[in-house]
């Protein structure tokens, strides 16, 4: 039985540092909402086939944000979910976005059949901006990956990566540090070796820390109460945090960043112009970004 007790309100913003929006470089879209064909045990937004916390965005909903964002000087557009390719308009959305700037899709690789990959590769070739893909993989074997991402996913993910590669696309493989040694030099070397076995000639790899929210909080436990930023945390600048240069669009408006979409107080407004102000970093996930120097960008 799920716990239906009210969510605890965030600590008062008076004790948290504020982050200014330095520039709007990266505009994210929660393009399939929180709906996914997997239910990974470390997903910080708890995406699953039945999670409708956020719904998919239509092309018609996205265009006004592309217009507003480009006029504000957005440098690149990112699409995440959920699984973006569950959005029936995903290919049209990408085609439209590439008129405005470079696009990157974060995908689990399961819906990347050869036909779709060929179509995406054509799109990438025909555009002067980059169209890039990030495929999530959390272990270098079925034994390590599947307990996190689901039974049988390791082989299916590798098939998706191969399909992209055969079509002429070279995705970035994104690995979270669900295992302590994933991010070590030895760990990275093992992932590079796996890609070499697949025949990938120019391996690209990105490591991300885990956020102990959403499903991950159930897997390994939530944050300790001391793991949060305070006004006394004063680095020279907050430029290393993505929230100093990004915003996230979902079907319910504009959020501060891709991590906090399941926190109503992460929502900053309806249009981008409503959200160019500073944000109080009251959440423990903000602490992770600060300590690990996370950038969700490729």
């Amino acid at each position, binding site marked *: 039985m799920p716990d239906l007790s009210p969510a605890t309100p965030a600590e008062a913003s008076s004790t948290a540092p504020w982050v200014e929006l330095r520039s709007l470089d990266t505009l994210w879209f929660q393009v399939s909402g929180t709906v996914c064909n997997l239910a990974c045990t470390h997903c910080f937004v708890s995406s699953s086939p039945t999670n409708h916390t956020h719904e998919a965005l239509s092309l018609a909903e996205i265009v006004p944000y592309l217009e507003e964002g480009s006029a504000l000087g957005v440098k690149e557009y990112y699409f995440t979910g959920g699984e973006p390719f569950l959005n029936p308009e995903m290919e049209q959305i990408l085609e439209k976005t590439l008129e405005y700037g470079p696009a990157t899709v974060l995908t689990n690789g399961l819906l990347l059949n050869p036909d779709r990959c060929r179509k995406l590769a054509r799109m990438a070739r025909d555009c002067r*901006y*980059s169209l890039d893909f990030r495929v999530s993989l959390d272990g270098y074997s079925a034994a390590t990956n599947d307990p996190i991402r689901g039974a049988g996913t390791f082989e299916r993910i590798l098939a998706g990566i191969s399909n992209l590669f055969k079509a002429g696309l070279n995705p970035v493989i994104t690995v979270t540090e669900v295992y302590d040694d994933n991010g070590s030099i030895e760990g990275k070397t093992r992932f590079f070796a796996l890609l070499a076995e697949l025949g990938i000639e120019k391996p690209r790899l990105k490591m991300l820390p885990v956020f102990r929210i959403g499903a991950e909080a159930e897997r390994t436990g939530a944050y300790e109460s001391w793991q949060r930023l305070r006004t006394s945390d004063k680095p020279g600048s907050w430029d290393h945090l993505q929230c100093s240069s990004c915003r996230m669009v979902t079907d319910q408006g504009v959020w501060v960043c891709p991590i906090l979409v399941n926190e109503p107080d992460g929502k900053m407004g309806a249009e981008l112009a409503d959200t160019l102000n500073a944000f109080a970093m009251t959440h423990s996930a903000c602490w992770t970004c600060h300590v690990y120097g996370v950038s969700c960008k490729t």
Partner: protein
Amino acid sequence: MDRDDEKLTAHRGLATWGEKLVPLGRFHEATAHAGRVLDGADRERERRAFAARRPDSTTVEGPYTRVAVFGGVYNNHCALEALLQAVRDDAVEAVYCLGDLGGFGPSPERVRPLLEQGGVLAIQGNYEESLAAGHDDCNCGYTDPRDNHFAEISYSYTAARTSAEFKRWMGDLPPRRRVWVGNREFLLVHGSPRRVNEFLFASTSPDPFLEVLLDQEGADGLLFTHTGLHWHRRLPSGRDAINAGVIGRPANDGRTSVWYTLIEASGDDVSITLKPLDYDYQKLIIEMRAEELPEEFIETIATGWWTTCLEILPAKERALSRY
């Protein structure tokens, strides 16, 4: 139901709110009232303020009718010598260097007298910033262990062989310059107007983004380097964005030439030419071997293909590279 099926159906009618599950309606109710919604006039004001002109007290040099601009020497004194000869042939009135004097070539101290003899006007790159401040890395921000390994070799080699006096000189370089060519005002920076180590690649620098940068800086053209790949784009507004390229190593295109940029005033307009430059790279390779620099660096000089620092390349630029 086994545990996996439970996970896949756990959210029926429920939303995730932080670490709790709540009825969907409750989450939507909370987000409906979150954030701020400005009226039309306030939104316009916010947008205008965000893209507003940023004050800059940099003196504007010139006006000139013909200037040369280059970036990234990377200790390649052989290419620098060839460049100084080429810009004499081009009959330019001024020569600008956009920074990154050090890097993977040999004998950093050989660069400085050449810059002085050629009357080169320089700005500070991330390499100069790091060397002058005594940092322990070049601040390129690589995550690939192999890229970091090689970046570390270049940087420690350069740091150990650059005199304290040269480092002080680097520390005194301005971070930006402004130059009139004809009646167009160019802003010269290393990475971008915002950050010394920001990469501006052709495939990830969309037109509207570049237009906003030029609006904010009140310039007619933007000159930068840092990525190692040269490109020029005349924007819809008629202004220019130019990655001047580097002379320290080839442009990852299978050619041994390196690149620099020539800007000439012509009436109300300017003409911008990205020019290849041939130099005695065999001589450089002999010196690199004598200094026991990695064969990977030598391969790049000899073949024109990058062997390191590849992770920074966007999809389109990476697709064109050999490695």
